[in-house]
């Protein structure tokens, strides 16, 4: 007789396969410890005894799947999260982008969009925003809707502003949003040149040639094979000498693609395609 823990992992594998077969969302290459944690939370909130019961329900009821998807794709970010990263972009990347008459950025795994608005503000202050197209992609339709709306809890404004200043912001962050009641909404102009789209690093392919890709705190949720797939897509999407920015605890080490990039700024996980 298998232990409870062996059964849970067996059911977990079956559930991910069922989700893939039924809804074409592929979480099979996601990190197991995080999946266990998130699905344990989903079980409690959906009042299911087991992952098999959850599987039974979500195969028949897309609304149940939507709720589970919310647990599987949870992503937490901030405006100008890790301020030194944005300072590094300003120092190393913007001067290069400024040499192009037009250029493209890809925010891979944009979640609810905080990074998109941060980049748009960065470009705005460098006088480059109108030359840019930003592709903002994610697997979660609901996260993309939030990203497109650009509306966040006003309670987060203080942290956003502090990050913005630390990143070397030239103005006041409040120049870029309107506050009303308990929300803040970013200026619509910031998303003039942003294309929001559904895209999966697990199953989709290259869709554009771009000059900068940021993909921060996404790869930590992938196993090595899926990390390699994503990094392969990034390599194939970037122009020669194009830039890649990862999360502060992500690196190319132990990836089959490590030889295809050179390090620009180690501390800020900024790389250049060779």
């Amino acid at each position, binding site marked *: 007789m298998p232990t409870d823990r062996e059964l849970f992992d067996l059911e977990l594998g079956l559930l991910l396969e069922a989700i893939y077969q039924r809804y074409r969302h592929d979480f099979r290459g996601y*990190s197991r410890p*995080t999946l266990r944690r*998130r699905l344990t939370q989903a079980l409690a909130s959906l009042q299911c005894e087991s992952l098999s019961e959850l599987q039974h329900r979500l195969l028949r009821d897309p609304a149940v799947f939507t709720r589970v998807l919310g647990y599987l794709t949870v992503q937490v970010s901030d405006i100008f999260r890790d301020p030194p990263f944005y300072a590094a972009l300003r120092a190393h990347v913007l001067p290069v982008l400024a040499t192009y008459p037009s250029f493209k950025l890809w925010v891979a795994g944009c979640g609810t969009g905080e990074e998109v608005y941060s980049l748009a503000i960065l470009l705005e202050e460098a006088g480059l925003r109108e030359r840019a197209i930003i592709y903002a992609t994610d697997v979660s339709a609901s996260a993309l809707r939030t990203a497109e709306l650009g509306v966040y809890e006003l309670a987060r404004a203080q942290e956003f502003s502090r990050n913005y200043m630390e990143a070397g912001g030239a103005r006041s962050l409040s120049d870029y949003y309107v506050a009303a009641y308990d929300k803040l909404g970013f200026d619509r102009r910031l998303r003039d040149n942003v294309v929001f789209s559904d895209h999966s690093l697990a199953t989709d392919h290259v869709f554009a040639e771009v000059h900068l890709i940021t993909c921060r705190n996404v790869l930590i*949720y992938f196993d090595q094979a899926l990390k390699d797939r994503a990094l392969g897509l990034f390599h194939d999407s970037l122009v020669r000498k194009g830039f890649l920015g990862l999360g502060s605890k992500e690196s190319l080490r132990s990836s089959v693609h490590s030889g295809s990039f050179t390090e620009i700024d180690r501390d800020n996980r900024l790389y250049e395609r060779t």
Partner: protein
Amino acid sequence: MSSLALSELRAPRLSAIVLGGSAGGIEAVGTLLAALPERLDVPVLVSLHIKADSKAHWPLVFRASRAPVFEAEDGQLARPGAVYVAPPDYHLLVDVGSRLSLSADERVNMARPSLDVMFESAAWAYEGGVLGVIVSGANADGAAGLAAIRAHGGRAWVQSPETAQASLMPRAAIGAVPDALVLSLGEMAAALASWEP
């Protein structure tokens, strides 16, 4: 109490030690790492509540450790005889085979890294083979995780609240795990030091 703690270290065979704390936790964990036995043959994982933008360089903070100290990296295999500390602003999780992973998921008990997150993953990964240790802290994080470790047959030590710089965390842990071994840091250190893995 030390002799009881020592027997818990010895049998059944230990696979990993997980340590956590909050306020006053750095000093307490430092004391324990300095007492690790020479022939330590299990990995030691540590999560401490510290500021998200902390520049703490763990090998330097814990330079008195008798085992090499690393900041935990995503995807890395934790090797026996070494210490891995969660980086600021990331949860540290461990999977079967001592593979480490980091997560930027929401804070748990207002903390990232959270002790509950690390302990719960360790309970899963090592079952009865893990020793969970909670030291000084001013937050209830870790109590649920320590209970998960016990529920999977693992062992639990808690710093005695009256000897802890901040007693809330040890008290919460004892509340959640009434049969945890409650020890002073000195007793824990003595048990670790005389343990011959």
